[in-house]
């Protein structure tokens, strides 16, 4: 059975773990460097990117996470997308810079501007009901990355080889298609 880690420093890690279980994979809570050892992939969940930045380096180093993401599959949602991407000018947030996309934090405003909307997937004809919470925006997609989901023509999910980043929260809906896509196109491919 595939073992997929969920970074559990702070945020919506529990919901991701539930979704992974329903896909017959084994979720592993990741808080220490040693937790990364036997994983086939990793999810960096939504939460506050400032908090995750602040706490990385304590029991789990940046370098460990960076080394993992060099050759294994990583899926970042919301705050996790910010951490995978580039171009965030806020000094309170540190990025891995591995995903070739420029991300703006909290780009839609405060919580009352949060919304749900059907988005278009590149790999499935049926729309996906996406939950955007104080969501980041993908401002620019570099040539290394491809757009795999759009909302009103703008990129909301991008993939670069084994890395996947989404501005919304697929873990908050019961639709498992995006986690399934991550497992089939990123996790199992990275192992080959």
């Amino acid at each position: 059975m595939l073992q997929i880690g969920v970074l559990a420093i702070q945020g919506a890690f529990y919901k991701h773990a539930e979704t992974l279980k329903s896909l017959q994979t084994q979720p592993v809570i990741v808080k220490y460097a040693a937790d990364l050892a036997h994983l086939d992939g990793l999810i960096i969940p939504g939460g506050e990117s400032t908090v995750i930045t602040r706490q990385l380096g304590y029991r789990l180093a940046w370098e460990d996470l960076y080394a993992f993401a060099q050759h294994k599959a990583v899926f970042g949602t919301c705050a996790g997308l910010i951490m995978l991407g580039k171009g965030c000018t806020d000094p309170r947030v540190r990025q891995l810079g591995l995903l070739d996309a420029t991300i703006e934090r909290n780009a839609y405003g405060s919580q009352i501007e949060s919304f749900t909307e059907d988005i278009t997937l590149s790999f499935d004809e049926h729309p996906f009901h996406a939950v955007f919470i104080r969501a980041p925006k993908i401002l620019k997609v570099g040539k290394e990355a491809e757009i795999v989901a759009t909302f009103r023509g703008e990129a909301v999910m991008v993939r670069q080889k084994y890395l996947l980043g989404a501005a919304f929260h697929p873990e908050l809906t019961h639709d498992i298609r995006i986690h399934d896509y991550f497992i089939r196109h990123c996790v199992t491919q990275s192992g080959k």
Partner: protein
Amino acid sequence: MEKSSYEVKVGLAEMLKGGVIMDVTNVDQAKIAEDAGAAAVMALERIPADIRAYGGIARMSNPEMILKIKEAVSIPVMAKCRIGHFAEAQILEELGIDFIDESEVLTPADEENHIWKHDFKAPFVCGCRDLGEALRRIGEGAAMMRTKGEAGTGDIVEAVRHMREVNRGIRRLQTMDKEELMAEAKRLGAPFSIVEIVAQEGRLPVPNFAAGGIATPADASLMMQLGAEAVFVGSGIFKSDDPSARAEAIVKAVTYYTDPAVLLEVSKGLKDAMFGKPAKGLPDDEQLAKRGW
């Protein structure tokens, strides 16, 4: 585009899990809290310990001060309104607050009714002492629950009592036959439809956080181990002798709440915690947890 659905409101609460929400009274404190790793701040004019000392009527904070804090930090900002005071809540929503706490810490505006929270775009958090109270608030539209504890005392005893009460209530529901659920809903004074969901799922339909009396990293760990999904620290940080170090220690204690080595490490070297006041000796009218129903 559907804004502010219940799904989106509960969603933000999900994002705060495993985090610490800190009470702050000015921009400097808000920055200290954010730098220490707070997942959100609660903007208020006086922290609960000072509300107790100050007396008088405790109302919603000055919007000007809340807006300044909103500008200073990038994390979500919460603010409190009085129980039943939906006009205060309307003002908080208008200024773009991320979460409204309909709080017993402020002087209640209505002793019989709470706010109908479904009507608002902003999500609400409410306090509870037991399962019935939690489910009544969820019925009214609360997107997050917290224990009431006894705010401003630095005494953890009431928060522990309330968390255990909620959990006991949930376990009780899980042992029941379907035939028994209606009678239990009546006993709890809770909406039947939500009682049914809790019996099935074995947990509240919204995140459940701890509040009211958390003063040390150990207190935070205790509440997490008892089942809290995040913690609010009110007076405990800025009434201590070392707010910044203590805030950071509590943040680490919440992430690594089951790791005694981390708990020991972050507890070492902290200066004095807030002096506190035993919740037990408080006269009836000073027991904030008894406000609301």
